[in-house]
């Protein structure tokens, strides 16, 4: 707890430097403390494992790990797949966001709705369904007689295959961040550009793109960091291809279980953390030079007319959706319906046995749904509540401390879930001072989720605070509204769309998250991700697919509920609504 003490010592200095010196302003800084404890302390704890050998400070682990060629090979592979994947996400997500938010394409709500689905499918399921889709034993392709011949190589078992799936998986992240940003562009700024004679490409490149660059940069950074820490896809595709990335290297080390495993994993984790921090630091550097506060009234959405090209654009959008959503989903459904894995599916032999089995025979499915629902909704709600004031402090009252925390909270998200899980176990197996163990309860999973997904909830909110005309808040201040009131009456409603987008992202990512809970679960406390993984691992691929199909159905049902309630919610809260 030495670090906590240091933090406390640093607080008064920061407070006198801030503009307001009221107690409510000071209170805001205390918010940084739980954030520090939950999301930074576990990592610090893990880092200790890397720099102490048998209780003595030593750089042995560093020398071993950093001196090994395998480490650098895996680093290069990670950078390549995450980088290429980010570009793919940016292209797909960016194109969707721009077209849906700014032009007059039809059926926007449906497009957005469908575009959200790929990210709700857990990465290893995505990988599984694509492998099943494209490989020689593809249930779907075999049903049409289009499967490649037995024995031919699986094209996805390659660096580009990993990057492609990472790109598809994380396109929604770029999409959501960018779209929240696009909603806030006042119509006048684009209309002014059009009157100035900007049209077509010039309008896009010189006005719309720079205006949305904060969202683009933020989305890109987030997609990159997510791709960097992704385990499911490189594990399913990279291990068979003998193409190690940092997360799979860590996994293999853990599976090996030597005496030095924790130390080496700790060093590798620091390496991933360092790369993620570099990425995020570049992102902050880029954003620091642009203060694109959007002035003027937000409200009326834009509708750039596509004219004759509209049908073409719509066709391309839907075709892309079919390729990235419908086809793998079909593959997944096909797998869940076959009587046994590898059997050719046709209209005579499909069966719902697997669904019957997971729903009514095994009690763990319902329990896992319950647990995952509780955890993901809890994390989403909790994080939004924390993120509004936190984003406020970070954006409006930046100091050295907030900037540091801003970088560090990225680490739990960028680390592979397994590593975060180990860090949490190390710290919470016996909490110092109060001597309680969280291990073996849902609580430890919950805390790990809070640590991991803080960034997802925080970034969109920070982004929208950056773009708010500060006069809106100042006007409330002049009216006598203190900080709490301003947050509640002015900032919260204006940031609600991005906060909701953030909450939804947290919910969707947490709902079928696997890698964190894989180490933290215990009997009775299993999550959906764990359930699917365990089934798949024990050879019950068909049952695993059935659960995955159920997960997607439940999420679609939940999204539909939001859709029905959307008329009563403030405008922009439901991300796929226009």
């Amino acid at each position, binding site marked *: 707890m030495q670090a906590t003490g240091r933090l406390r010592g640093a607080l008064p200095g920061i407070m006198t430097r801030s503009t307001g010196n*009221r107690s409510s302003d000071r209170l805001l800084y205390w918010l940084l403390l739980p954030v520090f404890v939950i999301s930074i302390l576990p990592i610090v704890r893990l880092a200790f494992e890397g720099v102490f050998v048998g209780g003595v400070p030593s750089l042995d682990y560093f020398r071993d790990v950093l001196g090994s060629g395998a480490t650098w090979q895996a680093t290069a592979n990670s950078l390549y797949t995450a980088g290429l994947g980010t570009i793919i996400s940016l292209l797909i997500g960016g194109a969707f966001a721009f077209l849906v938010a700014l032009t007059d394409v039809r059926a926007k709500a449906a497009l957005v709705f469908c575009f959200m689905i790929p990210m709700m499918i857990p990465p290893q399921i995505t990988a599984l369904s694509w492998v099943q889709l494209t490989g020689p034993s593809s249930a779907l392709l075999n049903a049409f007689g289009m499967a490649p011949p037995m024995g031919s190589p699986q094209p996805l078992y390659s660096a580009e295959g990993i990057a492609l799936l990472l790109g598809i998986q994380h396109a929604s992240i770029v999409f959501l961040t960018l779209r929240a940003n696009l909603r806030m562009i006042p119509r006048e700024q684009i209309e002014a550009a059009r009157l100035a004679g900007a049209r077509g490409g010039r309008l896009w490149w010189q006005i719309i793109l720079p205006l949305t660059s904060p969202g683009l940069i933020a989305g890109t950074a987030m997609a990159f960091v997510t791709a960097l820490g992704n385990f499911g896809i490189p594990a399913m595709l990279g291990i068979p291809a003998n193409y190690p990335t940092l997360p799979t290297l860590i996994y293999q080390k853990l599976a090996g279980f030597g005496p030095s495993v924790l130390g080496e994993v700790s060093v590798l984790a620091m390496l991933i953390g360092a790369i993620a921090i570099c990425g995020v630091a570049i992102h902050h550097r880029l954003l620091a030079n642009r203060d694109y506060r959007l*002035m003027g*009234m937000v409200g009326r959405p834009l509708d750039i007319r596509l004219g004759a090209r509209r049908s073409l654009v719509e066709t391309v959008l839907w075709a892309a959706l079919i390729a990235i959503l419908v086809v793998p989903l079909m593959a997944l459904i096909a797998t869940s319906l076959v009587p046994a894995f590898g059997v050719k599916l046709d209209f005579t032999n499909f069966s719902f046995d697997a669904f019957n089995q997971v729903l009514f025979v095994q009690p763990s499915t319902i329990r896992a749904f319950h647990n995952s629902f509780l955890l993901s909704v809890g994390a989403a709600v909790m994080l939004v509540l924390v993120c509004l004031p936190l984003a406020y402090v970070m954006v409006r009252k930046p100091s050295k401390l907030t900037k540091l925390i801003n970088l560090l909270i990225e680490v739990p998200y960028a680390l592979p879930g397994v590593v975060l899980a180990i860090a949490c176990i190390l710290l919470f197996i016996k909490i110092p001072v109060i001597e309680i163990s969280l291990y073996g309860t849902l609580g430890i999973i919950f805390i790990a989720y809070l640590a991991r997904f803080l960034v997802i909830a925080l970034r969109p909110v920070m982004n929208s605070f950056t773009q708010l005309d500060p*006069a809106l808040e*100042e*006007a409330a*201040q002049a009216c*006598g509204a203190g900080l709490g009131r301003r947050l509640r009456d002015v900032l919260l409603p204006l940031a609600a769309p991005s906060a909701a987008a953030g909450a939804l992202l947290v919910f969707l990512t947490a709902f079928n998250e696997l890698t964190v809970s894989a180490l933290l679960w215990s009997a009775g406390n299993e999550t959906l991700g764990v359930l699917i993984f365990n089934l798949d691992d024990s050879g019950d691929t068909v049952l695993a697919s059935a659960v995955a199909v159920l997960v997607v159905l439940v999420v679609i049902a939940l999204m539909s509920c939001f859709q029905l309630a959307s008329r009563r919610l403030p405008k922009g809260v439901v991300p796929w609504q226009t």
Partner: protein
Amino acid sequence: MADINLSRITKCFGDYRALNQVSLDISDGEFVALLGPSGCGKTTLLRLMAGFEEPGEGQISIGGQVVADPAKGVMVSPEDRNLGIVFQSYALWPHMSVSRNVGYPLEVRGMNRADRDRRISEALDIVALGPYADRSPAELSGGQRQRVALARCLVMEPRAVLLDEPLANLDVHLRETMQQAFLDFHRRTGATMIYVTHDQAEAMAMADRIAVMDKGHIRQMAAPETLYREPADHMVAGFVGAGSVLPITGVEVENGGTCSVKLGDTRIAARVCPKLASSGHINGQAGLCLRPEDVWVEDEAPLRGKVEDCVYLGGRFRLSVRIDDEHTLPVYANRRARVGEPVGLKVADGWVFDRLAGEVA
């Protein structure tokens, strides 16, 4: 109750000094206009008073209470200053209706519903927006939005009202109505008003005193008529009124604050700035400020010139008459004049001041 005192305020943005050693004393109930060219620091000064910016040096006090003093670490936050402000960019909350926007200060103060509604509808009536109460700000025109912002400021009856170019978006007719509304409000409540504008006619018409700003300095703070008749320096003389400033030599100071100035081939009588008269080196740096209404065409007058330009202003003409290579005089005339026509000019009044004052600061 709400006199505002600024002493030696400096505000820097990075290396740029937006305000430099500004001192300003505004007494309770006074209506002060801040006048100056774009970018001179008016908004910055206003934001310092409101508490949105912290001064780098200096002290600000409101009603006797020190609200900002970096040397002593004092900084009272804006919400505790009870000042009303109208922003250049309206700053209406897009998620609230017009009436909620207007009523928000009362809501914050915990006023009950009935009183609040009454005050809201009064305030909306003042700005003639009664029928728009339930609209959202996005559905209003620019001028209407500005009026909502005004109503929001007036409704809380603040001890001082800060207005940042509040009428910039209104048409001439509405602008006059609103000016009257401000003056009425000022008379009724006796609140201190600080009014930023770059429209000097507006400043002259409304303010008790005007502070003319330039490049982060206050050049002169005086009643409108003083500012007009006796500008302190070149910048003020040129910025206020449609006059012109001529470099002159051959000044002879007489008693009683007057002097005689050589202009063309003749001499005219003018008032002289006491500071300049007593400074001794009067002939190197004197300037003559002439207002067009003090100069008129008189065919036999000894001061001769050629008409360079003639503009109809409605009711009268304004001529520019060149009397020699470096001197052009503004003149009001009752009839149109041909360009190039020779005319005689009679100068009834002028103001001689230190042309170089303030230039080095």
